[in-house]
Each structure stands twice: as structure tokens, then as C-alpha cells.
């Protein structure tokens, strides 16, 4: 977070932004469902904070190495843990011999401390990771309060039981939180919105019905389509992007050519050393130099830097190659791979430098042509601002939703790559209590913090109004005004299934002009359109519900997006916007139609005054295509002199129905 808030336009140096206007989220309570908290971190200092909000009804509970009287304060106002559901699956007692853990809100893993400090940590100056990414860390809403609900346990990287998550929802709703932040997901295939195995969909429905915004990660299964999780329309689902920061790492070859790789390499420069590539023989000569299955001869490797080529983007290839090279006595690793954004530091300052296949191939040709190839690896540097532009992260899960493609997911994108924030003192990858982590887990609390700022400014806005404000004002272009890209193979222009509305723009969201609002009746509309039965809907909502004989159209759910996943000829849908700007306002529609699609909007002009605050309009989309197509993308923007209220349009023609080409 030493750069991410500046990247999002929330620099604390500027007096006129939503950070200052919201008094940094003072009075708002953010509940975090995660692995707990390391309360001694300076990120949770309560210096300068006023009394705990009087509506707070939660508790701070003492436990293993956690003393409520001293570890809770005016920043961490609540802390408790829920483990019984997990233990029932895992078995009792919790085995802490391999992975340390505390039966208390104390965080052994570090993940919960990282997400909590990103959402609402206090200012901590002069922080870096071994000199990289220096600056001030803080949360999005530095004066908001934190309620910690430890529902995830430090087993196999962090596991959380749905019974425990549901209990945390039950208590958090009663405690008086305003925002809930969940960097938690399940695995595909998804459970339905009314299946409590999910836990998050059901619990969040009840929270949202009480005005609590629930922010969840989209998951890390990208860049494949249809991998997005936490897809219920009442949830605010967050994708991850990079920021305008990079860690270039010089690789100087013996022929004096220098390439810049990416790494978190904070060790010493060793000068020129030998460089080798494990050439193979036989039927698959490339296999010897594959990072996933390096075949090394220790006598040839000792004291040298090794080049390998990875055929998978995941970090496991780097970890496996690094340990193989280290065991063989190698002193460094250059990994040629598809970009995966998230950097990891190899152990003990061992250099693991990533390059793309093009640079990897050029290094390989140098090795093959030189009599005695040599290389010098220099420590990583921090580069911020232009020319580094943000991309949707490789790992960030992509839409469309596999449950309901008409409900655009993810909703919004926030920084989630190489984020420096507070962590547990037991985190093996930390430097002085701070660590660099990547994932939609890190993007989620960025949005939770921003939601807290919006709640402070607009306490009467519904969760749907806040979501609409975020989506309709999000950025789809970089600082130079060019479209954003999404990492993948190959990198491509980002579309709504990559980033929802775009990269979150907190200052714009504070004054969106119009919102596409929703309440329980709209969610009932959605549930009826999905074909869920009357009794399940009635029980979920607490309202006796009889869905119409002819199910309502899911296209009419009042979302700040339009996604037509199966257009044959034409379709007409309805939206309603609520004016939250100046009472007298006139908006005009600006349509950017998807390729081959005609879009008409009626009425084309919306006139608001002191009595007319809501106006409905119809959108008709017609296809010229006569074949099944993929998705084409466009937008509908309502504009006046001050505002541009943009929603994404995604349309796919499907002449042949029920044909498996949904992605």
C-alpha cells in the first residue's frame, strides 16, 4: 500500500479528495473475516482516534496470546474467533506442530493482518520490503475501526469452514459492522446462491438486507473464463490489477548486454559468474531446461546462475526450480515464463529473476554462442509512475459467472499485485512485520476501505447504490488515456469480464451523479428469474414470495451493467436510475454499441427535478449477426456537465441454443 493509494488517487498529500472529505472513514466499522490479526503491529495503532462508535455491540475476546484488555483498542474494536465447524472437518485438537496457530484472534498466518491493515490500517511511515517499495503504508480508511472475525485457520495455507463463516456473519450483523471484507473463496463448480454450503452467499444476503456492504474476492483462477467466484448479485466482487510500480532487476551478460527482468531480489550483487542452461539430449531435449523438472548435474552447476524455461505461469515452477538449483550449488536462477504478475522472493536472498520468453531466448542464444558465458545479477530497483501501466492481473478470475452470465462479475478491480502491508511476526516472508503479497485477497480490502470512505460521506446509501457508484465511475483507461490491458496469453485489451466496470476510482464514486439502486425486491426478482422455488426465496428473504407464473427476465435486474448472453434477434430490458446529484439535472445517453449490435435507449434524455428522483428507461439491443458469436463489448453512458455514468454492455449472439461456447 506504499503506492496503491496514490495510484488510486487517494494521496494524503492532496487536501481535496474523498479521503479527506470522509474524515478518513472515521466512525465506520469494517468487519474482516480472515486469519485474525497481529495486534502489536503499528498499523493498528489507535493514536488520535476518538471513542468507539456507540452503536458497536461486538466483543473483544481473550484467548491464546491475545489479551482483550491490551490488544483491543480504539482501532481494533472487536476480535473473536470461530473454529468449531473447522475442527469438525479437520479433527481435534488443532495440530500446531507443522504450522503455528493460536486459539484466539491472533494471526499466525499473516493473511488477515495484511488484509485488515490494507482496509483500515493507520499510517506507518518509512516502511519497505528490504528496501523495495519504500513509503508509508496505510489502509484505505485509516480512521475506520476494525472488527476481526477469525474464521480461517493456518492449515494447508489457510482453510475456513462454511459453518464458521455463517456464524461470523450472524454475529457481525448483530455487532453493528458497516462493511464486511472477505478475501475467501471456494472452488469450482460453484454452489447456487441459495445453497448454504457456500456460506458466503447466504450470510451476505442477510447482511446486505440490513444495509451492510459485503466485499469479496473474485478468486485467483484466471485468466481462464468462467472462473469468477462469489457471484451473487448482492455481493461486491473484486478482481485484481497491478499498479504503476515495477521491480526491474538488471541481468548483465558477459557480452555487456543488459536485460531487465522482474524480481524481488534484495541480496548482494556477486559480480560476473558463470551462466548455464541445462541442454538436454534424446527425444525431448527441452525437458532438461524446464523449470518444473530441472535435471541438473551438480558439478556443472555449482557457483553458476541457471537459466530455465517454465511452461506454466504458476509460482510453483519457480519454487521448484529455485530449490533444485540451490541444492545443486547454483547461485541464481533466471526463469523465462509467461508473466504472472505476482513476484515471490526466493529464500535467503537467492536471486530468482523472471523474464519473458523473448528475453529468455536471447539469453539462451548468448549461452550457446559464448565460449564461457557469464552474467551479473543486480538487486531489484523500485520504479513507479509512468511508463509502468496497470493491467488486470494474470491470476485474477474472469467472468462470465458460471451461475448466471447475465449478472456481470467481477464488479470492480483494485490493486492486488505485490502489495506491501503489515503481517504476522510468524510470517516467514516478512521484513520487520511487513510483507509483499498478491491475490484478489489483497484487492478486496482496497475496495472495503474505499466503501468505508463512501459510507462515511453517504451513510444512507444502500449497498447496491455504493456498488453502482463504484462501477459507473471506474477507470477503463490508464493515466495516458489508453485502454487497459489484461494479462493473459497473449495480453489483450481488458473487457468487463476481466475488470467489471474497471479499476476503482474512489474520488469519482463519491459523486456518481446517478445510481442503479437495488433493494430486497430487486433481489427477489433475481431469485425468481433464476427459478429458485417460492419457499426457499420466502425463507431467505423473510417475505412471503410467490414468483409470477411467467418468470421475470433476469435482464431486468437493476444492475449497473447489461450482459445479454444469448441474443437471437433483439431484446429489450429496463433499468431505473436514481439521481443522487443536484436535484435539477438533465442527462443524455451516449451509446458505444458492441460490434454488430444496434443499441437504442428510450427515453434518450432524463430530466430530474426536486420531485422526479427516479427515472426508468428501456434499452433495446438487436443483432446483425446470423451466427453464434463470442461476446462483443460496448457501453452506455448517461452524461451531464459534471458526470459520466458509464455501464458496460456485453452482448453475445446465440442462434444455436444450449451450445457449449459460453466463454
Amino acid at each position, binding site marked *: 500500500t506504499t503506492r496503491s493509494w496514490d495510484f488510486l488517487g487517494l494521496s494524503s498529500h492532496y487536501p481535496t479528495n474523498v479521503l479527506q472529505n470522509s474524515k478518513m472513514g472515521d466512525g465506520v466499522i469494517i468487519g474482516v473475516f480472515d486469519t485474525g490479526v497481529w495486534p502489536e503491529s503499528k498499523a493498528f495503532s489507535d493514536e488520535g482516534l476518538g471513542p468507539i462508535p456507540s452503536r458497536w455491540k461486538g466483543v473483544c475476546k481473550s484467548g491464546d496470546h491475545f489479551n482483550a484488555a491490551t490488544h483491543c483498542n480504539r482501532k481494533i474494536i472487536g476480535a473473536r474467533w470461530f473454529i468449531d*465447524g473447522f475442527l*469438525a472437518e479437520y479433527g481435534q485438537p488443532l495440530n500446531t506442530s507443522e504450522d503455528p496457530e493460536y486459539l484466539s484472534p491472533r494471526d499466525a498466518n499473516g493473511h488477515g493482518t495484511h488484509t485488515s491493515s490494507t482496509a483500515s490500517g493507520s499510517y506507518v511511515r518509512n516502511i519497505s520490503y528490504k528496501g523495495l517499495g519504500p513509503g508509508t503504508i496505510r489502509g484505505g480508511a485509516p480512521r475506520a475501526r476494525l472488527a476481526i472475525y477469525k474464521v480461517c485457520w493456518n492449515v494447508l495455507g489457510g*482453510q475456513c469452514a462454511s459453518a464458521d463463516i455463517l456464524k461470523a456473519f450472524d454475529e457481525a450483523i448483530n455487532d453493528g459492522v458497516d462493511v464486511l471484507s472477505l478475501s475467501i473463496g471456494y*472452488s469450482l463448480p460453484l454452489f447456487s446462491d441459495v445453497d*448454504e454450503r457456500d456460506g458466503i452467499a447466504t450470510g451476505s444476503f442477510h447482511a446486505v438486507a440490513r444495509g451492510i456492504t459485503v466485499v469479496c474476492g473474485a478468486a485467483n483462477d484466471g485468466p481462464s473464463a468462467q472462473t469468477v467466484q462469489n457471484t451473487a448479485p448482492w455481493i461486491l466482487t473484486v478482481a485484481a490489477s497491478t499498479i504503476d510500480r515495477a521491480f526491474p532487476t538488471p541481468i548483465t551478460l558477459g557480452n555487456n548486454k543488459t536485460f531487465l527482468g522482474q524480481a524481488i531480489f534484495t541480496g548482494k550483487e556477486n559480480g560476473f559468474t558463470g551462466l548455464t542452461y541445462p541442454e538436454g539430449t534424446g527425444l525431448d531435449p527441452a525437458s532438461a531446461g524446464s523449470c518444473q523438472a530441472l535435471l541438473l548435474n551438480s558439478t556443472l552447476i555449482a557457483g553458476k546462475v541457471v537459466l530455465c524455461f517454465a511452461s506454466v505461469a504458476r509460482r510453483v515452477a519457480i519454487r521448484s526450480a529455485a530449490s533444485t538449483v540451490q541444492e545443486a550449488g547454483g547461485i541464481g536462477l533466471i526463469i523465462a515464463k509467461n508473466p504472472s504478475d505476482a513476484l515471490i522472493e526466493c529464500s535467503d536472498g537467492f536471486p530468482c529473476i523472471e523474464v519473458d520468453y523473448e528475453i529468455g531466448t536471447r539469453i539462451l542464444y548468448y549461452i550457446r554462442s559464448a565460449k564461457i558465458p557469464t552474467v551479473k545479477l543486480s538487486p531489484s530497483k523500485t520504479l513507479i509512475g509512468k511508463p509502468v501501466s496497470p493491467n488486470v492481473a494474470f491470476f485474477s478470475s474472469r467472468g462470465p459467472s458460471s451461475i448466471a452470465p447475465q449478472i456481470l462479475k467481477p464488479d470492480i478491480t483494485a490493486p492486488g499485485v505485490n502489495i506491501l502491508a503489515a503481517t504476522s511476526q510468524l510470517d516467514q516472508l516478512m521484513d520487520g512485520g511487513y510483507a509483499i503479497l498478491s491475490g484478489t485477497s489483497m484487492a478486496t480490502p482496497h475496495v472495503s476501505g474505499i466503501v468505508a470512505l463512501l459510507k462515511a460521506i453517504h451513510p444512507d446509501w444502500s449497498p447496491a447504490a455504493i456498488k453502482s457508484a463504484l462501477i459507473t465511475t471506474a477507470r477503463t483507461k490508464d493515466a495516458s488515456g489508453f485502454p487497459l490491458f489484461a494479462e493473459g496469453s497473449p495480453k489483450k485489451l481488458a473487457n468487463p469480464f476481466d475488470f467489471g466496470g474497471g479499476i476503482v476510482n474512489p474520488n469519482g464514486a463519491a459523486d456518481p451523479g446517478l445510481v442503479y439502486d437495488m433493494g430486497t425486491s430487486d433481489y427477489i426478482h433475481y431469485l425468481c428469474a433464476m427459478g429458485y422455488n417460492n419457499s426457499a426465496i420466502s425463507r*431467505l428473504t423473510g417475505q412471503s414470495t410467490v414468483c409470477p407464473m411467467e418468470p421475470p427476465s433476469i435482464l431486468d435486474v437493476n444492475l449497473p451493467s447489461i450482459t445479454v448472453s444469448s441474443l437471437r434477434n433483439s431484446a429489450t430490458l429496463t433499468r431505473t436510475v436514481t439521481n443522487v446529484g443536484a436535484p435539477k439535472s438533465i442527462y443524455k445517453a451516449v451509446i458505444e454499441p458492441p460490434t454488430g449490435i444496434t443499441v437504442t435507449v428510450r427515453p434518450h434524455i432524463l430530466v430530474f427535478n426536486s420531485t422526479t428522483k427516479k427515472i426508468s428507461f428501456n434499452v433495446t439491443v438487436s443483432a446483425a449477426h446470423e451466427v453464434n458469436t463470442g461476446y462483443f463489448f460496448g457501453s452506455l453512458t448517461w452524461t451531464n456537465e459534471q458526470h459520466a455514468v458509464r455501464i458496460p454492455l456485453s452482448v453475445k449472439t446465440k442462434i444455436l441454443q444450449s451450445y457449449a461456447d459460453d466463454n
Partner: protein
Amino acid sequence: EAKSNVYIVYLGERQLDDPKLVTDSHHDLLASVVGSKEVASDLMVYSYRHGFTGFAAKLTESQAQKLSELPGVVRVIPNSLHRLQ
């Protein structure tokens, strides 16, 4: 002896205002299947009583099936694990 697992018995939006009464109703409902309130107390893992109503309990598959057939029960589903992102 049949193996017990944690099941979530979901009853929907809360109908009673007093959380204590809500929890009592959960014990009554579970007792109607497992035989007594004492046994029900032993098997109860969580009573969901503020934001919505339901409970988590250690049940055999047949007990879960019986509960799912009772009036007012929306669904009975097994506990499952999520992961950090």
C-alpha cells in the same frame, strides 16, 4: 455406529426477536430428531440467531435427512471448506 458430520440446518430469515428464544427453538427442533434436549445440546455446534436463523450440528446422514423433512427447515447441507485468495 453411523458417522457424524457437521451439517448446517438453515431456517431462513429470523422470525423471533429474542435471540434466546431463537436458540431454544433450535434445541427443540434438533431434540425432535435426536431424542432429547440434552443430546441436542451436545450435538449443537452453533445457533445462528441474529442475522438469520438456523444452526450447525453434528448429525448422522439419517438425522440430517429427517431434519430436512421437518416443516420450517429450508435446507440441511453439509459443512464445507473455503480457502484464502
